[in-house]
């Protein structure tokens, strides 16, 4: 187990290196010059060149890359071109909203989608199944910003129940935190509920066809317990896997949701940084997101051992 863990962790290193190189090259090949942007409308070429030198952008790309990589390995993500703040500081300030939104979304999703999917699987072919699947296909078919605006229009603008935008730190009160997050998290979870509910249904359906479910029925077990104890427990591995994989999709959703609800998270930071070509920030954020993705999937892989005793490393 320990050696497996070590191997898995080591295996993420080339992946992360690859991601780093990819992001770096992509950004450097992108048109748009931060020096010109920083200089402002009236700057002349000399001033722009000065700024470029100042930012180290005049060096060859690969030497820039290795300098950057070397700094990262020492935990230094550099300084934002614009804010003149350490990128790590910027990210730290933006981490909480994004984590809050993601976690709340996942909690909401699991709480809604797993029971729905299980129910649909159990009632396969019935109108309940069709209803749930219909909803899930529909949820799948709407861009998250459309859902977000619809929710804002109904719950904030028309009914005035919930705030339209903004974020409150959890330290300033869980109530306010939840109050401001509930709408964005709901908007974002619609898609994931659709997604996870489908997966749950498929997994549970598959498990329901297994012999041990028949065994459980042959024991005289009630249907609810057959579902909870035997079906869902065994369907957990694929469901958890999908939740892990969908994290990549979740990040995309977070970016959009944050910009719809003006939540000062990493997503918003990324969009702003990209539009301003703030290389150090973009690089660090994408690297961070990729790292979180890899980490989550690592955790999920390891969690298989808890969910399924057959899996041993």
């Amino acid at each position, binding site marked *: 187990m320990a*050696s497996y863990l*070590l*191997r898995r962790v*080591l295996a993420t290193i080339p992946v992360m290196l690859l991601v780093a190189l990819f992001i770096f090259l992509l950004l450097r090949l992108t048109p748009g010059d931060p020096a010109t942007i920083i200089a402002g409308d009236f700057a002349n070429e000399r001033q722009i060149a000065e700024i470029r030198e100042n930012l180290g952008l005049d060096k060859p790309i690969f030497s820039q890359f290795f300098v950057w990589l070397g700094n990262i390995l020492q935990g230094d993500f550099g300084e934002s071109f614009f804010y003149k703040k350490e990128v790590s500081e910027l990210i730290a300030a933006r981490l909480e909203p994004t984590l809050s939104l993601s976690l709340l979304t996942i909690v909401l999703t699991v709480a809604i989608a797993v029971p729905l999917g299980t129910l649909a699987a159990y009632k396969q072919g019935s109108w309940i199944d069709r209803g749930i699947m219909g909803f899930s296909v529909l949820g799948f078919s709407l861009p998250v910003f459309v859902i977000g605006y619809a929710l804002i229009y109904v719950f904030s603008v028309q009914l005035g129940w919930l705030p339209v935008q903004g974020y409150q730190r959890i330290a300033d009160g869980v109530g306010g935190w939840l109050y401001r997050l509930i709408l964005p998290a709901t908007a974002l979870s619609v898609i994931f509920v659709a997604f996870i509910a489908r997966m749950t249904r498929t997994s549970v359906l598959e498990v329901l066809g*297994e*012999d*041990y479910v*028949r*065994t*459980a*029925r*042959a*024991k*005289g*077990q*009630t249907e609810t317990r057959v579902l909870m*104890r*035997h079906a869902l*427990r*065994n369907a957990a591995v694929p469901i958890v896997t999908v939740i892990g994989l969908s994290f990549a999709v979740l990040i995309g959703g977070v970016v959009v949701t944050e910009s719809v609800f003006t939540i000062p998270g990493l997503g918003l930071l990324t969009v702003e940084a990209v539009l301003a070509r703030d290389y150090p920030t973009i690089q660090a954020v994408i690297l961070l997101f990729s790292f979180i993705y890899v980490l989550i999937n690592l955790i999920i892989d390891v969690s298989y051992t808890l*969910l*399924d*005793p*057959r899996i041993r490393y």
Partner: protein
Amino acid sequence: MDQKYVLEVSGLTVSLPKNADRPNAVEDISFTVAPGEIVCVVGESGSGKSVTASAVMGLLPDALRPTGGRTLLEGEDTLKAEKSRLRDLRGTRMAMIFQEPMTALNPVTRVGEQIAEMLEIHTSMTAAERRSRAIETMDAVHLPDPEKMVDAFPHQLSGGQRQRIMIAMALVLDPALLIADEPTTALDVTTQAQILKLIKEMQERRGTGVLFITHDFGVVAEIADRIVVMQHGRIVEYGDRDDVLRRPKAPYTQMLMASVPSMTPPERSAKTGETAVEVKALNKVYGKTGWLSKQRIVHAVKDVDLMLRKGETLGIVGESGSGKSTVARCIARLIDPTSGSISLHGTEIATISQAQLRPHRRKVQIVFQDPYRSLNPRRTIGQSLIEAPVNFGMPEAQALQMARDLMELVGLSGDALERYPHQFSGGQRQRICIARALAVEPEVLIADEAVSALDVSVQAQVLKLLDDIRVKYNLAMLFITHDLRVAAQICDRLIVMQKGVIVEHGPTRKVYQEPQHPYTRLLLDAAPGQGMTFGAEIAPAAAQGN
């Protein structure tokens, strides 16, 4: 209420969905099971025997509907029972064990809990009581060290142990009726013998009525008190064990019994053809120790030597995991041997590259176990048959003509080349696979469990065909099987393998009559239905040899 029988099935009819090939899965089924009695329902695939069992338990899939008759469990009709009543009956009055002990147990729950679940559902015992009762029952089915095993997960147990867990679970509440649906089919022959013994012991000790479903007449002969023979959803014969087995009335029963190969090998002359294949010190090791990895190493085949002559059938028998298929696949170079030599007509093929190997491919052909996966479902029979000859340079028209001839040789119509595999039965497909193997005029034919998946009547025909073509083409045939009855009838010589090692080899008759190794003796003793004489020799032609 008549309590003479634990189960009384009368006039049971279960209908099939509209577009099925017949209107009813079973039709007008009637039989009884008395307390302390084992009733065997025997029949080939599709005969409706499992449907009958499921109907009694109320576990039919939604598509199947009972449309007539009664299934009285101690006088209570389970077809008409409410769902909740059915649930109460299951486990307490009737219990069931299934074919696949691998999949019938929940893989993520400890076996003790799975037994205890039965108690949890139907009794008000405390958790501690349930646990000790589970251990008790595990002890009763002779599981070793139940105190420890109670906390094991299914995958940590062997197949036989799992089936014992299933039996313990089924019997923990002392049901009146035990339904066993092919409970030993997936097990090795030695394990099968133990499980059959256990079922018999349990039934005798507790006076349970047992409805035992099987396709294997050997098993029937071993344990049945009475026998129900089914064909196409109907009962064709029903009677006491000895009546049915010794004086079968129905032609179908007679045919089935005649198809079961005999355990007594016929006299065969030793073959003296030239050597086709010679294997020396063959080893196959799976897994490797890599950087940081702690993978287990499996020594699948260890120092195997064998020699096969033209015109000869060499059998390799052994239980699952004995390495017999690995040997076959190494010879066919479907996998690369780890070390050793395979000499094909003097050409060393164990270590040559794929490119060098290609011209030699045609010399070794293989017929696989599963007829449903051996043919590409997207290609017509003709396309599959001409693939190899065309690969080796035969013009397509000529290959097609040859394919037609081969189809007729294996007893199928030459016009069927345009059809797709799904339009053929399992036996027909296996014939097609044989025809395909013959298309390149091989020197060595490997039959890897080639008849194991077939019904017994079909199996007899395919065995006959294999033997005929061996003679006709003077083939060297390597016959891999776990079935001692089949091996007895078709092999000239026999190799017995256990855990990757050859433990015994010699002329078939000699091995059966004077087994040297204890494992061989164990295998032979475990074969069910020893007391009965079934069928006859499959291939009289074999006796003449050359």
